[in-house]
């Protein structure tokens, strides 16, 4: 059924259709509307047989989900940014225990300086946690990915994080084709764990493991991701067959035929990138793009096939690994190992900075001309940076940079 609705509300309804049995809720922007929506759905009885638990922290949110999932209940939570960091220890624990929890991240920047707007720093901080990490391009895809996420998580016994851009998606009203309950029920069978906490079959879970098999245990966790590389496209195909639209999968190429330049990105910015691709194609440039939907596991082979022989590769990403650059770009380089293709990184949209089509097009044009820097910061205000660096050199001062910059502004000092 087509409905005009907020992304968060749509995700809440989609999660509800998955018949979760335990939902743990804790507020943080821009995720909050999702758990608010779920609390309504549970209270109204539209999600039946479900425990909605208001916890005292994100650490508890995921910990409660760990307990309920280990006891055989389909479990869900959602968070963002500082909340994801606050639950970090439990994030690793959930995947180490192989618990098929699904968690939505309304992607948001990390402090300090505290910033509530969108980027991908939060998800990237957990990239090695063992969770499957999927990125939605639109609210429709966010809806669809949640339904696929439960299926995937329970098939391979591994938690799944569904990432959707904070505000840009979570708070955007779009037309959503909301699946029907029977459709979801046919696609997603009830959760039947291989092993669980059960007095009839007592097991000890979470024992201490020493050097003798720890590495093997970790390899097997890695192996789940290798399995996921195979299952993600299969599940996406089945989804398409049942629901009639393409959503999810590992990657989605757009107009890559004969492309000299291919742009890669995670999440909603792919919409703008595709528009730029269309414009540039119209102007006769051989440009295409690839939406990376599955960031963990990372589709090395699928990307290598598409990127082989492409002259220029640009990765637009909303994160910055301080001291090295873009994380997605480094992963893309890994898919091209042994090949001599340069991969350019465009760091964009940090802390909610708007990414304009104009700015993107300028980057792509430069890339085609061979004049783009290897690590480029989109729309950086170099004036502010030069001023701050100058003062830092002239006055020995330590302390928070953001506050220093603010002070300089208030003092009206424009001397450089």
């Amino acid at each position, binding site marked *: 059924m087509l409905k005009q609705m907020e992304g968060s509300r749509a995700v809440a309804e989609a999660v509800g259709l998955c018949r979760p049995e*335990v939902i743990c809720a804790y507020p943080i922007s821009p995720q909050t509307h999702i758990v608010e929506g779920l609390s309504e759905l549970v209270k109204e009885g539209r999600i039946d047989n479900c425990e909605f638990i208001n916890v005292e922290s994100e650490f508890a949110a995921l910990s409660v989900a760990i*307990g*309920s999932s280990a006891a055989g209940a389909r479990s869900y939570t959602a968070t963002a940014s500082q909340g994801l960091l606050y639950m970090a220890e439990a994030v690793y624990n959930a995947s180490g225990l192989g618990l098929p929890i699904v968690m939505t991240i309304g992607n948001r920047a990390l402090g300090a300086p505290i910033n509530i707007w969108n980027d991908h720093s939060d998800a990237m901080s957990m990239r090695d946690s063992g969770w499957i990490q999927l990125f939605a391009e639109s609210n429709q895809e966010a809806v669809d990915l949640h339904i696929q996420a439960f299926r995937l998580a329970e098939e391979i016994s591994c938690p799944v994080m569904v990432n959707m851009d904070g505000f840009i998606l979570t708070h955007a009203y779009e037309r959503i084709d909301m699946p029907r309950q029977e459709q979801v029920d046919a696609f997603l069978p009830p959760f039947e764990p291989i092993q669980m906490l*059960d007095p009839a079959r007592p097991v*000890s879970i*979470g024992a201490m493991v020493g050097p003798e098999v720890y590495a093997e245990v970790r390899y097997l966790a890695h192996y789940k991701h290798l399995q996921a590389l195979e299952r993600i496209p299969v599940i996406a195909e089945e989804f398409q067959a049942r629901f009639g639209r393409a959503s999810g999968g590992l990657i989605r190429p757009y107009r890559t035929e004969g492309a000299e330049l291919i742009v890669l990105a995670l999440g909603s910015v792919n919409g703008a990138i595709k528009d730029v691709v269309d414009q540039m194609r119209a102007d006769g440039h051989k440009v295409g793009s690839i939406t990376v939907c599955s960031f963990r596991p990372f589709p090395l082979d699928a990307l290598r096939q598409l990127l082989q022989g492409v002259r220029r590769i640009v990765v637009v990403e909303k994160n910055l690994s301080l001291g090295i650059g873009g994380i997605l770009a480094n992963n893309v380089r890994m898919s091209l190992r042994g090949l001599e293709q340069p991969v350019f990184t465009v760091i964009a949209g940090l802390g909610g900075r708007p990414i304009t089509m104009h700015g993107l097009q300028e980057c792509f044009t430069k890339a085609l001309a061979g004049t783009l820097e290897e690590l480029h910061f989109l729309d950086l205000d170099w004036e502010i940076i030069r001023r701050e660096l100058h003062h830092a050199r002239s006055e020995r001062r330590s302390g928070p940079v953001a506050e220093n910059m603010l002070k300089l502004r208030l003092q009206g000092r424009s001397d450089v």
Partner: protein
Amino acid sequence: MSDENAPEQKVKFYQKGTYTVGNRLVNVRQRSVQASMDRSNSLTCGHRACQGCGEALGARYAIDAAMRATNNQLIAINATGCLEVFTTPYPETSWQIPWMHSLFGNAAAVAAGVAAAMRVKGLKQVRTIAQGGDGGTMDIGFGCLSGMFERNDDVLYICYDNEAYMNTGVQRSSATPVAARTATTPAMGANPGNSFNSGKNLPLIAMAHNIPYVATASVAALHDLEAKVTRAMSLHGARYLHIHVPCPLGWGSAPHDTIQVARLAIKSGLFPLIEAEHGMVTATVPIRQPVPVTDYLKLQKRFAHLLRGGEENARKLAAIQTIADNNIKRFNLVRKEAPRV
């Protein structure tokens, strides 16, 4: 509970290698769960606890009693700590019950999740307990514990209080008594041992949540401990049991003195045995003849520096005596009733 006319229990000796018949000689009603051949042996032999470990003893009694009270329908969640480490060295486990360890600070929340799963699955008979050391309970797990209390989740949380972070080698926790030597409060300098802080009384904090049941227990009063677990399991909602468990390694006491040390903590008034329901004290175990705190302190090397004489030490010992005296006053512990311990 077995009744008076029940057939005499068959006698079986305690776990391997001991000849203790124990309380099988007393009236059937008064026998402990441990005296029964049908006890679940939830925490069975072979674990790696130190000799004389109070925590291992307390856990065995507590869990077997909980198993009997729930007709063996029990799931346990364990915080990181000695109990977790000494019971589950891969690939072995001493637990005969469904048991899970997740993290150091989240046992109460994980247990809340298990309880939620049981509710949603309609498995009312399956009950959940969480357990951890004083560090996992009072320090790092305190937020999750308070949340579990406040939501009144159907979980019995058991804290095994050995008054320090033992698993990492005896560091100070918020349960470490004043003046005690630990690896991070060495017996050095002008103020040796732990500082004279104001302390943290978790049973009272638990009571402030108005939860259905809060109790303190000790390995020196095992009947009382079992009775409290049984009472706790007869109730629903959040319940808290705080068990005093001497740690020979950390306290510098002799392994064979574990029970004696625990008993002197009760008799001196330093560890009051209380029970409370919905925030009101309902019972306390009386002390007939209190003993001076030094009787308790002198069995433990962690307090050795206090007992070397001098004015300063006398002042500190008096301060510790005041703590005990205040407990006695607060809970009206010195009464003429027959002592239970």
